């Protein structure tokens, strides 16, 4: 038994991560082939509530400029592209994802991970983020490409639900997208195939949701922020494919084993926190270590629900493929839900995932996430009494990461949490005596 446990532990990094590397490698190769040999057509899309199922059904290649931008940042090669965009007139204060991507797009589109193909269709799934509209408007102008704004009405009703008219509007637009894709590929949509893809998305959603439920365990088997990002790329790029299903089967099995063995990402789990906001890609490791040092594990994160929110029960429905794609885009992702719905999402995380604290990582680039996070802090500290830390940096631009300052703030926060814990433990011990 002991031997098995040791083996499982030592191959942990191997399984899920290796599979992810291999599959994403294939995905990037496919992009490169399209770019360099004209093999396949690319559809540009955005992550938030993406309708990747439709694109897969036409064998088109989903390309997410956000993923390209974050890869550049993670590989510490974004800054020259950002600077190039700023030379062209983009402001210091514009979202740096866009700037990095524009800088890349206007060059030879070669990156350390892939050559990015030009788009055959620029599909702006406007799900929440207003910057999306301008980002794709700009790309379309730069390459004189075909642009379709797939307009997703924001959740604004007090019920927190889309109206029947919202759903009809989105379904009708999806039908228009299908027509465009049919023209692009010269093929009629194979409806049975779409249903099969949507059914795989449903399976994927089920497994992803179970994976996320596992972090309710103490200790949490993985970090729901820093490790979730490994699972997010397959969720967006491979959802609906066989590879996608296989990846999540592997990941789920692996995480369940970790729960059984009672192991987590750190030698000891001392604090459980919820984290809100996108990660600082250029300094992910450094940032992670600032929490690891305190034995702090993220047990849930809003960022991992940008592309879709499955842990509260949503599943795609193969019997109603377009309606369920519409539901996913309208309601089941964090970006199209209003700010107060995000408060409630976090509140559920704090309560149901048994967290000690909330950390808000406020990034300058992404005002969709950050604008108003001071009010969020107010709500959690004053109304709910949840210890909350707000720190600022950026998700793409390395110039906005101040290591010493972040470290001081995080240390001070966990020091005080630790102090509170000790006082409480002391009181409890005293009370029992």
């Amino acid at each position: 038994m002991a031997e098995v446990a040791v083996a499982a532990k030592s191959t942990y990094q191997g399984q899920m991560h290796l599979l992810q590397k291999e599959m994403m490698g294939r995905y990037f190769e496919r992009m490169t082939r399209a770019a360099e040999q004209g093999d396949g057509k690319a559809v540009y899309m955005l992550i938030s509530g993406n309708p990747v199922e439709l694109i897969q059904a036409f064998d088109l290649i989903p390309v997410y400029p956000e993923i390209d931008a974050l890869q550049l940042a993670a590989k510490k090669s974004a800054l020259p592209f950002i600077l190039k965009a700023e030379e062209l007139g983009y402001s210091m204060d514009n979202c740096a994802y866009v700037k990095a991507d524009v800088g890349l797009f206007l060059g030879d589109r070669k990156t350390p991970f892939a050559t990015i193909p030009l788009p055959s269709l620029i599909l702006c799934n406007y799900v929440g983020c207003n910057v999306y509209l301008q980002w794709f408007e700009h790309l379309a102008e730069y390459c004189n490409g075909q642009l379709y704004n797939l307009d997703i009405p924001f959740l604004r009703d007090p019920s927190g639900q889309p109206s029947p008219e919202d759903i009809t509007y989105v379904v009708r637009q999806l039908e228009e997208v299908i027509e465009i894709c049919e023209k692009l590929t010269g093929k009629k949509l194979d409806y049975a195939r779409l249903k099969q893809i949507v059914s795989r998305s449903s399976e994927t959603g089920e497994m992803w949701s179970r994976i996320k439920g596992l972090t309710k365990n103490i200790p949490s088997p993985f970090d729901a922020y820093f490790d979730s990002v490994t699972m997010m790329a397959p969720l967006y790029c491979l959802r609906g494919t066989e590879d996608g299903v296989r990846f999540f089967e592997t990941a789920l099995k692996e995480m369940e084993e970790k729960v059984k063995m009672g192991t987590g990402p750190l030698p000891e789990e001392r604090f459980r926190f919820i984290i809100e906001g996108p990660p600082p890609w250029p300094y992910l490791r450094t940032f992670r270590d600032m929490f690891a040092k305190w034995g702090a594990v993220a047990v849930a994160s809003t960022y991992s629900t940008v592309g879709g929110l499955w842990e509260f029960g949503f599943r795609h429905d193969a019997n109603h493929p377009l309606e369920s794609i519409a539901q996913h885009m309208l309601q089941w992702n964090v970006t199209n839900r209003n700010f107060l719905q995000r408060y409630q999402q976090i509140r559920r995380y704090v309560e149901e995932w048994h967290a000690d604290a909330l950390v808000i990582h406020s990034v300058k680039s992404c005002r969709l996430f950050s604008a108003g996070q001071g009010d969020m802090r107010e709500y959690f500290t004053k109304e709910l009494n949840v210890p909350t830390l707000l720190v600022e940096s950026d998700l793409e631009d390395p110039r906005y990461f101040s290591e010493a300052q972040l470290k001081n703030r995080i240390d001070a926060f966990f020091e005080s949490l630790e102090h509170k814990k000790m006082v409480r433990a002391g009181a409890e011990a005293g009370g029992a005596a």
Partner: protein
Amino acid sequence: MTTVENLISRYRESLEDAPLQIAADYKQQHPHQKLVGCYPVYTPVELIHASGMLPVGVIGAGNRLEIAHADSRFQSFVCSIVKSTLELGLTDKLNFLDGIVFHSICDPARNLGSVFKRNFPNLMVEYIHFPQNMTSTHTLDYLVAEYRRLAASYEQLSGKKITDEALQNSIALYNEQRRLLRELYAIRRETPQNLSTVECYVLTRIGTLLPPDEHIAILREALPQLHRRDEKPKDRIKVVLEGSFCEQPPIELLDGLESAGCYILDDDILTGWRWFTDDIPVDNDPLRNLADAYLNQSVYSGVKHDTREPKSKHLIDKFKETGAAAVLILAAKFCEPALFDYALYKRALEKESIPHLCLEFEEKMWIFDKARTEVETFVESMLFD
């Protein structure tokens, strides 16, 4: 009879001091009248008006309000108007409103709507999702449904049904207001020496704060006087101004820009209160007409993304139609829609060899020397080229 000069200077002072005071005073004189604030850029004000309430432009707090609370809710990298609007609320300066409406212009404004909901439970906070797909044949139906939803909400707040007749009357009234504003702007285009940007701004801005019939009466009195003016043109360059569609530049800044040596022939300031290029038809289904006007008759702006024609083409058309010599981009600091637009504008303007200058401003700014100097240098370079 008050002269137009007296009128403008009286209102200018009030606008500089506290831009919402005119509406707050109105409420005090009409305590039973309900008022609904409209955050920029656009609002279908006709719907509010037809339910018997007064739509009021909540378009920032000017530069005399100290931001003491709102900056702990919204970070340093968020534009001024978001913070000043929240500050107004947190310091009880919006208590004269019964409701407020935000819409999908940008991410900070959208989140502000939610923050308002949480912090001011007594205020009815509405949110409009304006469609950004201008090409789908289904968009109009969507927007009609959205306006119906909104209408129902305003009927509830006012306790009054919105009949077709009432809506037709409101549309006709605002058509008249917009027509007079177009006349006002025509004076600036044709004889900018006869109407300064600030005068034009004051006459337009009060229309966001007074009942439309009162504003119409003011404009009817002012316009003939303005038409009679016969000033000698100064040696200034003619420009069009772009980028101030939401947060408003301080009045002193507008003054400064002109006296630094230019005539601003056209601008997009307060664009949401004159957002239709023509009258909206009143017959048949007025609500549908109103929705259709957004899709097919409304002016372009940094927050409306119409894939049918590039935005920069609109700007260049405007430039050519007015006969301006240069473009002045005046964007609010941290305003992503305006700052993103600038990248495309710059490219298009350079392609057409149209001289331009880009400046950033903040509603709360006090010192204008730098902006003035930049404009002066720009003007000099153009005059002595």
